C-alpha cells in the first residue's frame, strides 16, 4: 500500500471516480491543464481528456452555477474553488440554489455536486488565503460540509462526497496537505510519508459522511476538532499529559452526534477547537449541542479555542492560529473547572 500525502490521496479519489464513472468530471480555475495551484487535479486532463478536467473562467459564481446545471442534468461535477476565501461570489448559488433545488422541486430535481476548496491558515497566506468559512455553510439547510484531516480519510471522504446525491462542500486543510502539522511551527515539518494514516489503499473505498473518528481515546476531557486542528489537539494532549479523547468530526453536517454525546458523557468535560473566528463559528453550535445533551454530566464550562474575531493577519500568523499552547491551556482550564 502506497504512502501518499493528502494531495495525492485527493487526486487518487478523483482519478478513481473518473475512471469508474463517465459522469464524473472536474473543473475550476487553473484546475485543468495545469492541475490546480495545489496540484490536486494534476494529470487528470492528460489521463481522462480535455472535457473531463478543464480550466474555468475566474467566476466562482459561474463555476458553481454551471456545476448545478450539470448536476440537474444528471452528471456529477466536482469543482474546485481555488481558495475558500474566494467562495463568497458563489455563495448565492450555493445557498439559494444548490441547497434548495431538491426541496423546492418536490424532489424532482437534485444537485449531486461536490465543491472542493483548500481552506485554513498556518501558511502565511494573509487574510485572503487563510480563511475557514465552514460555519457559513453549516447554517444552510441542504448543504453537507466535510473536512478531512489525513490522506486516508481525504480519499474515502471525497469519494463519498462525489457519490452523495446532495451538494457537498468539501474543505481541504491546506496546511496539512503535505504533513500532519501540529502547530509547533518552530519544529521541523513532518511529512505524511510513513504515517499510518498516509497508507492509502489503491482503488475505491468510501468513508460514510457523518461518522467521526476517535483519534485518541481518553477519559478526562473530550476535544472536538477537525482539519488541521486535529493534529494540534493531539499535540496539546501530548504536551499537557491530560488524558483527552480527541474526536475528529470529519463531517460537520451531517454530524456524528452519538459519538460526541457518548464521549462527553464519559469525560464530563469538553473543549472545542477550530481556526475560524469565534463568534458564530461552528464551535458555537457544538457548544450549544453539547450543553443541551450533556448538561447534567458537564463538570466544567465548555471551552472554545478558536481564531480571533478579526480578519486573518499576515504578520501575526502564530498569534492568530490556535496552536498547541492555547489548546493545552484550555485543557488545563477545563480540568480545573
Amino acid at each position: 500500500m502506497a504512502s501518499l500525502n493528502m494531495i495525492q490521496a485527493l487526486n487518487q479519489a478523483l482519478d478513481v471516480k473518473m475512471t469508474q464513472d463517465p459522469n464524473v468530471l472536474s473543473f475550476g480555475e487553473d484546475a485543468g491543464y495545469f492541475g490546480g495551484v495545489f496540484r490536486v487535479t494534476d494529470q487528470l486532463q492528460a489521463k481522462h481528456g480535455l472535457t473531463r478536467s478543464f480550466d474555468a473562467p475566474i467566476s466562482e459564481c459561474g463555476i458553481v452555477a454551471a456545476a448545478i446545471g450539470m448536476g440537474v442534468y444528471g452528471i456529477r461535477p466536482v469543482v474546485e474553488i481555488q481558495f475558500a476565501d474566494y467562495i463568497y461570489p458563489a455563495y448565492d448559488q450555493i445557498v439559494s440554489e444548490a441547497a434548495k433545488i431538491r426541496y423546492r422541486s418536490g424532489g424532482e430535481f437534485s444537485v449531486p455536486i461536490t465543491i472542493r476548496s483548500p481552506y485554513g491558515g498556518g501558511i502565511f497566506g494573509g487574510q485572503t488565503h487563510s480563511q475557514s468559512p465552514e460555519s457559513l455553510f453549516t447554517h444552510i439547510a441542504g448543504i453537507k460540509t466535510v473536512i478531512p484531516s489525513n490522506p486516508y480519510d481525504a480519499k474515502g471522504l471525497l469519494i463519498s462526497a462525489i457519490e452523495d446525491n446532495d451538494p457537498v462542500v468539501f474543505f481541504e486543510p491546506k496546511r496539512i496537505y503535505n504533513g500532519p502539522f501540529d502547530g509547533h511551527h518552530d519544529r521541523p515539518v513532518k511529512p505524511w510519508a510513513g504515517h499510518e494514516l498516509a497508507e492509502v489503499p489503491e482503488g475505491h473505498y468510501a468513508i460514510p459522511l457523518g461518522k467521526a473518528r476517535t483519534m485518541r481515546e481518553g477519559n478526562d476531557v473530550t476535544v472536538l476538532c477537525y482539519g488541521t486542528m486535529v493534529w494540534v489537539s493531539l499535540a496539546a494532549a501530548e504536551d499537557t499529559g491530560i488524558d483527552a479523547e480527541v474526536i475528529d468530526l470529519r463531517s460537520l453536517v451531517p454530524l456524528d452526534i452519538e459519538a460526541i454525546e457518548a464521549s462527553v458523557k464519559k469525560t464530563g468535560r469538553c473543549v472545542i477547537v477550530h481556526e475560524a473566528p469565534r463568534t458564530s463559528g461552528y464551535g458555537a453550535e457544538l457548544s450549544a449541542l453539547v450543553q443541551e445533551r450533556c448538561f447534567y454530566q458537564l463538570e466544567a464550562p465548555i471551552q472554545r479555542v478558536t481564531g480571533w474575531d478579526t480578519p486573518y493577519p499576515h504578520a501575526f500568523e502564530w498569534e492568530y492560529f490556535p496552536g498547541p499552547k492555547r489548546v493545552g491551556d484550555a485543557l488545563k482550564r477545563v480540568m480545573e473547572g
Partner: protein
Amino acid sequence: MKNTVPLSLRVPEPPARPGDKPDFSHLILQAAGETPRPEINVDPHDSRDMAFALVRVLDDEGKAIGPWNPRLDAETLRKGLTDMILVRTFDERMHRAHRQGKTSFYMKCTGEEAIACAQAQVLNRDDMCFPTYRQQGLLVSRGYPLATMMNQIYSNAKDPIKGRQLPIMYSSKEFGFFTISGNLGTQYPQAVGWAMASAYKGGDKIAAAWIGDGATAEGDFHNALTFAAVYRAPVILNIVNNHWAISSFHGIAGGMETTFASKAIGYGLPVLRVDGNDFLAVHAATQWAADRARSNLGATVIEFITYRIAQHSTSDDPSRYRPADEADHFPLGDPIQRLKQHLIGIGEWSDEQQAEAEKAAVEQVREAGKESEAIGTIGQSRPSVKEMFEEVFATPDWRLQEQRGEVGV
C-alpha cells in the same frame, strides 16, 4: 487638467410618469421584413447589426412577410393562438382567485404570451427550459394540466411541490420545466451548465433560459454569457424586455444606453433582437437559435421586445409609477390580436372561431378550477405537514428526524 464643468450624478428617468403622455420614441423599431436573416453558421462578428435591428414577420395589416417568415401551417398557428388565449384566460382567472382569497399571490404575463407559446412549439419536450415566473405559456402549450398548476398555486394537498414554494413557482421535470427560483437570474448560468452537460454527454438535447430586462443586471447574466461563449454551450439565452422591473423602467438596467441584445456582442455570441409580440417572429428566431444549438454551433442570445401590461404581481400597483394608458401606446400591439388578425387574413380563422376559442378557454379553466378547488384553495387543503421535513436531503439526518418529532408529524 481641471474639469470644464462641475461633475453631477445622472439618474435615468422614464419618459413618462403617471399623468404624463406615454412616449416610446426611444424604442428602435424596424418595419416587418426589413431585417435580413443570416445563415445559422454566420460569424457573430458579421451579424452584430442584428443587435440593433428588429426581427419582425407580421406587418401592420397582419401579413407575414420577409426572410424571417417561418411559413407555419395553419394548424400550428391556430394552436399558438388558442394557447395564448388559454394563458391569458388562466391568468385572469387566477388573478381573480387572489382577490377572492384563494391564493396568497399571483403573477400574470399579459401581453407577453407569444414568447413562451411560440418557443414551446420550437423546443422539444426533452429540451430543458429554465424559465422565470412569466413563462407559464411553456407549460400551457405543452399541455401540462391546468388543474395541477392551480394545485401548486393553492398549495393544496395535490400540489406537486408539496406546499414548499410560493404560488406560480412551478416545477416539472416531465415537461422539461426547471423549478422556478425566487432569486432572479440564478437559472441563467444553470441553463448553460445543463447545456454543457448535454454536450459533454454527446446527446442531442438543448437548454433554453429566460431572464427579464431588469435581472440582466445581476452578475449571473454575465456568468451565463461567459460560460456559454467559452464552452460553446447549446443553449438559447432569452432576454424578455417588457420595459419594466416592478417600478423601475428598463433604463435603470441600462436600457436607455443601448439595446439589451447588444450585450451579446462582448462575448462574441450571435444575437437577435425580436418583436416579442409577433408570434411568427418569435417562432422563427427561436428556430434559428435552436438550429444553431443542435448543429453544435453554440449559444444564441435573443432579446424579445414586449411590454408588461399587467401589474408586476398581485402585490403591485403600477398606477403609482407609470401612465395608466402606457400599454395602449406600446408600438408592438397585442400578440393575440396580431396573430388573430393574421389568421383571419389568410382565411384560416374568423371572429366566430375567436369567440368560440375564448369561450372554450374559459370553460377549460373553469373545469380545471372545479377540479383543483374540489381539493382545496389556500388554507383549505394542504400537503401533509411532514413534507416540511422531507427532501431537504435525499435522506434526512438526525436533526430533521428530531425536529420532525418536536412537531409531532
